[in-house]
């Protein structure tokens, strides 16, 4: 079974994401910020990461940079979510190592499409 790390400071969003992704057969690990997420990655590197961009403690950008610098940190496919949709913002995330991007709020259909796009389902 593939493991997906869901990173978001909102427990509601984590719950929604968990329900959607479990439906696609993922085992879910949750983290409420970038720091917790890095700890989870050190323990076990996931196959996929659904990453919120604006978080306290360590935001999505800092997390992604740190992740990609870790041993095996290139393994997970990272789909990041944000409410910001300007091209510069997206380009910065892609440059930092994201694979796809989802605009919030998301639904099952769009998560499925984007996870398919990066070859996770």
């Amino acid at each position, binding site marked *: 079974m593939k493991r997906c790390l869901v990173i978001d400071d909102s427990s509601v969003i984590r719950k929604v994401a968990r329900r959607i992704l479990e439906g696609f057969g993922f085992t879910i690990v949750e983290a409420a910020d970038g720091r917790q997420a890095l700890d989870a990655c050190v323990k076990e590197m996931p196959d996929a990461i659904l990453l919120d961009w604006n978080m306290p403690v360590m935001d999505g950008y800092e997390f992604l940079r740190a992740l990609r610098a870790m041993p095996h940190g290139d393994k997970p496919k990272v789909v990041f979510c944000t409410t910001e*949709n*300007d*091209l510069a913002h*997206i*380009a910065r995330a*892609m440059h930092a190592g994201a*694979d*796809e*991007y*989802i*605009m919030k709020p998301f639904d099952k*259909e*769009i998560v499925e*499409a984007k996870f*398919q*796009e990066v070859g996770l389902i």
Partner: protein
Amino acid sequence: MTPADYDFIRKVLKERSGYVLLPDKQYLIDSRLNPLARELGCASLMELVQKMRAPGATALLDRVTETMTINESFFFRDKIPFDRFKDTILPAVMEARANTRRLRIWCSACSTGQEPYSLAMILRSMKEKLAGWNIEILATDISRDVLERAKAGIYTQFEVQRGLPIQMLMQFFEQVGEQWRISEEIRRMVQFRHLNLIDRFSLLGTFDVVFCRNVLIYFDHATKTDVLERIAQQLAPEGYLVLGAAETVVGLSESFKPHMDKRGVYVRTGGVSPKPALAAVSPLPAAAAKAVV
């Protein structure tokens, strides 16, 4: 509105566009035509129907018909047909047209343009391979409104989010406020024209690839068959037809057969059948064969 009024509208739609509106979708008449009635200054839907019944109301009937069309579309819809276009169809038709280096592609129900633009983006990303080729993408639809939107090439965040890989968004779109506009180089690759599939289209000429996706589903059996047979007439013998995920030729037309295991992809019956993978048994083009002899 009386049941007879609804029947009248259903008959108009069927005659003018082939659209069979099932009775359980009757609510669509109210939700779509009420705004149109208001726009045209009618006090009610009944008044609109009265105007439609008046002699010489052709333009209004067209307007109503177009207003009732279902235009949902998205970039790279269902993904697989576009992968097949790239990995199977394109190499085959390029081989067939190696002499003229000319390809003609037709999206026959293009809606707001996502389908032809998806093809254009695929072709653009294969620029090197296609150097020296003349490729035409003709995109047609019955609805003039969607054609205007298609030509403008402006999409919402929601529309670009569905189906469009992020790299393509970054490469081929520019941001206009909250919306996204497809780049001019992609827009220039597609020609949009008004066309009703119920009408004759033999003047369009011959195509190597025809996309006819998610439109036959709205037609009855006889209309599906008629449209498919006439598309067969416009398709080159070694050409390809691509249908929507819920559509098939089976039981409708003998002029097409499924292309091996490629779902949704069809070739002409009696046309050139797809070649086996082994190069050794692939027939050589006439000129080359002669040279070998």
